[in-house]
């Protein structure tokens, strides 16, 4: 195993160079973007990203048998970071594309933000939820080290996650509804926002990932 290596799982959905460059900028010496199971198994840390529509993502994840490798990784200790659609794919099902079964690794649903979506004052909110919003850290976690409470991260999504087991929620964001912005379970940390696009705070989160042992 190459402990210093970070594997970014490439299942053909969107550009993964941003994630890879941000990891390098955060100090990773060896970042590999790959769909090769052997290489993913050998890496010390794994990132499961995702951009695009859920139906196509799930089709590619299954075609490349990324679901198998994810289940295997999550039985182990190695740190795994899921980002955006990567987080959504871990849930039971999504309302996107008229309903898609997801990996059911974390029980819970991915719901449409809604139309109309209203804030507490009754004002209409635009969908997608696009821009910098505050993340309330719901508990301490090594991934939050050096990041202040309510720091803003960059979001861009129209569907949001609601985990059934609320104790898994590590961070939440208000946007008409309460969005699970970060979930964590043993060696998995999964975020709805884009750390690779969240400037200083995002790079800090990635640095934390690079030094995280995989224990909560």
């Amino acid at each position, binding site marked *: 195993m190459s402990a210093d290596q970070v594997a970014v799982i490439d299942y053909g959905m*969107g*550009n993964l*160079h*941003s994630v890879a*460059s*941000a990891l390098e*900028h955060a100090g990773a010496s060896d970042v590999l973007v790959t769909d090769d199971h052997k290489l993913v198994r050998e890496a010390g840390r794994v990132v499961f990203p995702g*951009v*695009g*529509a859920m139906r196509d993502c799930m089709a590619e994840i299954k075609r490349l048998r990324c679901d198998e490798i994810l289940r295997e990784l999550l039985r182990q200790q190695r740190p795994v970071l899921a980002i955006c659609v990567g987080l959504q794919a871990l849930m039971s099902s999504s309302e996107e594309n008229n309903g898609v079964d997801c990996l059911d690794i974390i029980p819970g649903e991915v719901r449409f933000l809604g*139309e*109309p979506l209203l*804030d507490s*004052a009754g*004002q*209409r*909110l*635009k*969908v*997608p*939820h*696009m*821009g*910098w*919003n*505050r993340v309330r850290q719901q508990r301490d976690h090594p991934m939050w080290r050096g990041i202040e409470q309510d720091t*803003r991260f*960059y979001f*861009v*999504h*129209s569907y949001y996650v609601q985990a059934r087991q609320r104790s898994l929620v590590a961070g939440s*964001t*208000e*946007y*008409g509804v309460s969005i699970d912005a970060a979930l964590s379970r043993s060696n998995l940390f999964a975020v709805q926002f*884009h750390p*690779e*696009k*969240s*400037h200083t705070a*995002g*790079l800090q989160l990635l640095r934390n990932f690079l030094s995280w042992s995989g224990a909560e």
Partner: protein
Amino acid sequence: MSGLATRIIPCLDVDRGRVVKGINFVGIRDAGDPVEVAKRYNEQGADEITFLDITASHEDRDTTEHTVENIAREVFIPLTVGGGIRKVEDIRRMLNAGADKVSINTAAILNPELVREAAQRFGSQCIVVAIDAKRVADVDGRARWEIYTRGGREPAGIDALDWARQVAALGAGEILLTSMDRDGTRDGFDLEITRVITDAVNIPVIASGGVGDLDHLADGVLKGGADAVLAASIFHYGEYTIAEAKAHMAQRGIVVR
């Protein structure tokens, strides 16, 4: 009010890999280098960067791709690339080069299905439709705007409000709305069309065209209802920094990062 911060987006006009229109940054060695300029805006706290490729010839487009790659390697905030996007393949190339969003204008008007196809393929979140609108004679005392193509030179004979609704329905994730009447005037945004369009669609609208001072930015949000504001010259010429713009907007009660 939502906790979501109003975005301030500086725009770079890039021709054959060089930033054009006067750049006047203190302390930048090469003010024509888009990477240097993007880094500076990033340091100042820009929420996103828009890169408008005004390269005329097709052959020079490879340069654009390299520039996007170089910016994406060093700037970790969202990057939108517009100009010269004609087909799905162009979008794929820009996204692969490191753009987070691609802005389409003329090609969407010539072929609206491109918006649907691109949104389905890459996701709505990365498809921005740029609308260049010009006020035309009022009908029954009500203001009307029409869209223009080819950098605002040719009228397309399409009502701007109808078009905004249509692109939202086709799956665009955002609208970049530029008033051709105000662009370059420094008189402020056309607040009327900004309000009309932002109220008519459920996707975010970026106001653009005409910013001459910091109150104009705030007015775009408070009076025009824009979800984000874009400006070029007030930042390029070093009149104001992004941080000053944010401080001013915050003073006027707008949530900023």
